[in-house]
């Protein structure tokens, strides 16, 4: 029922604003965030040419490091931030100049933003009371939302008497009761501790299927992005880097930034040369020579300009590196720097001539081969077709 379209949306914070703030010695959060962003004559470009269509009942996650413009984008959809240029449509209606209250949206904030002077019940009923919904209907809606979220017993409490997780549930409940077209969630789990965050994440996934709404979700946590989103929008410095499904983003990152941002621990990068010989391609370093699969070669050949050698940055995910035996074909030698036991796996940091690598080794494998410790020399190799190739200058994925 609700489709959100953002067309060429831009946000520029005028220069005067930052001048004024520094004049009075105040530093606001938004200003601190701006330092990586483009500065034009008009001001600081916080969001640049943002295009996205969120389909009905889709869950789209905006993800990126702090200050990448993801919250600003969401706030523009909510109407809390003016749009400098471009258009936002909700359900086909242009809403650029529509007040937040008339956009039929609900928003969950990182800081919960509950009304401290009202009880949980009043917090959830507030929006319905403003809409002059009959009392018994308000009661029914609030109680059913409370039931879904498991907060029925706290309905008479004030927010300050609740724990962080309970407060966040109330905030979500406040959003559910009004049955909005669009749910906007601005880092709703960031203020919770790790355990509670995992639990709430699972509940959000469940909830999402129960209430069938259109969601835009902002987070800097790539795990949340991967697990919650139907599609992920990766942003950096106000520019969209990639819009795709979580699997696509993970397997085929559009550029080196996306590759490094998604995945924990992050992808291993090393400098290499891409060498063409006829229709075949090989990735070459001092002690590595990996021939690429024919289908990869065919793709590379399509965009290949002159020359036989190209400087590239290659990337391999830690989980796609295997331990190898000495002298095995394609095996690289390295020295163990640090090992981190994570339970069922161990993260092994290795220094090799080509650079630093992190390997994720299942503990079962280690039991067979014997424990690793700092200073050990090991051999490792990449899984087949595991290597991602990025242009050294532009950072774009070459495949």
């Amino acid at each position, binding site marked *: 029922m609700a489709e959100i379209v953002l067309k060429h949306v831009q946000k520029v914070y005028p220069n005067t604003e930052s001048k*004024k703030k520094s004049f009075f010695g105040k530093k606001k959060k938004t200003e601190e965030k701006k330092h990586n962003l483009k500065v034009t004559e008009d001001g600081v470009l916080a969001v640049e040419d943002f295009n996205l269509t969120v389909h009905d009942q889709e869950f789209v996650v905006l993800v990126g490091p702090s200050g990448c413009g993801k919250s600003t984008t969401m706030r523009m959809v909510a109407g809390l931030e003016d749009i400098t240029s471009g258009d936002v449509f909700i359900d086909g209606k242009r809403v650029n100049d529509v*007040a937040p*209250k008339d956009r039929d949206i609900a928003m969950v*904030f990182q*800081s919960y*933003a509950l*009304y401290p*002077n009202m009880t949980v019940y009043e917090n959830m009923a507030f*929006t319905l009371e403003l809409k002059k919904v009959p009392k018994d209907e308000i009661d029914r809606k609030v109680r059913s939302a409370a039931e879904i979220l498991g907060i029925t017993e706290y309905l008479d409490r004030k927010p300050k008497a609740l724990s962080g997780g309970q407060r966040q549930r109330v905030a979500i409940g406040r959003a559910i009761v009004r049955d909005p077209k669009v749910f906007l969630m601005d880092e709703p789990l960031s203020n919770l501790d790790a355990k509670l965050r995992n639990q709430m994440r699972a509940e959000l996934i469940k909830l999402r299927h129960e209430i069938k709404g259109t969601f835009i979700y902002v987070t800097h946590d790539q795990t949340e992005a991967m697990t919650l989103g139907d599609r992920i929008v990766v942003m950096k410095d106000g520019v969209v880097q990639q819009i795709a499904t979580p699997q696509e983003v993970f397997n085929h990152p559009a550029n080196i930034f996306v590759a490094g941002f998604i995945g924990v621990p992050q992808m291993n990068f090393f400098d290499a040369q891409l060498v063409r010989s006829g229709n075949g391609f090989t990735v070459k370093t001092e002690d590595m020579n990996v021939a690429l699969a024919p289908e990869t070669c065919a793709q590379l050949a399509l965009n290949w300009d002159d020359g036989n050698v190209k400087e590239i940055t290659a990337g391999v995910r830690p989980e796609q590196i295997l331990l190898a035996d000495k002298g095995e074909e394609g095996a690289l030698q390295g020295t163990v720097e640090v090992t981190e036991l994570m339970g069922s796996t161990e993260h092994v940091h290795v220094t090799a001539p080509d650079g630093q690598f992190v390997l994720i080794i299942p503990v079962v494998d280690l039991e067979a081969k014997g424990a690793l410790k700092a200073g050990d020399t090991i051999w490792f190799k990449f899984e087949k077709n595991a290597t991602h190739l990025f242009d050294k200058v532009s950072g774009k994925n070459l495949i």
Partner: protein
Amino acid sequence: MKRDKVINRALSIFFTILSLAWIYPVFMIALNSFKKATAISTTTAFDLLTPETFNGLANYMHALNEQGFASAFMYSLIITVTSVVLILVCCSMCAWYVVRVNSKISNFFYYLFVFSMVVPFQMLMFTLSNLADRIGFNTPFNICFIYLGFGAGLAVFMFAGFVKNIPLEIEEAAMIDGCNPVQVFFKIVLPIMKPTYLSVGILETMWVWNDYLLPYLTLDSTKYKTIPILIQYFRGGYGHVELGPMMACIMMVVVPIVVMYILCQKYIIDGVVAGAVKG
């Protein structure tokens, strides 16, 4: 540690003596308000009450029956209530707007308000009373607008300090929930600011209730007297002073405000701190 203890003890003694010095005059007034007129003289004023000098509540009855006490009380009450209400309503809205809009102009006005606290009343009292007289602001019913002007500095400063501590997200949530700006203020901001209202209210009440100079200069004193002015009128002509009833009258004026202060002092300190430090 030991040195700290000694310093603490010395400070306690010092401040006890100091507080006694402040309490002493009030105590003297209370004491003399129960004495017979003959027992209040330069030599006997400091004596404690004895059965011979005790006058019961006669002085209080005299003060109450004094011509104009009831009307003075009413005028004081009207002026205090209207002024304080006006200050609270206008200044809290103004502070909210100034903080939230945060433009050059609003900042300018904020600093103008703060600056007004620096200007002493005595500097402009004659021009002000003259102006008030000309435009007819010299009755107990509209003197509150003059009080609004003088009270705005402190009130806006304190309210602004508190508003800065209200997370903006709460107001944004209300806006998304369906409030217009006026509703955001009255339904969300105002209830959150209750403690500040209380502390600003108490400070302004004490000031307006006890104020002598402003009503004396602006009000038409043949028609309107507030209680502080009335007390002055106990000094009759030819150096005759009715000290007993005067003391009783002072007590009746001071006691309510002192009781209110003691009951609410927690909020006063909270409010002042919120404005001054966290702002």
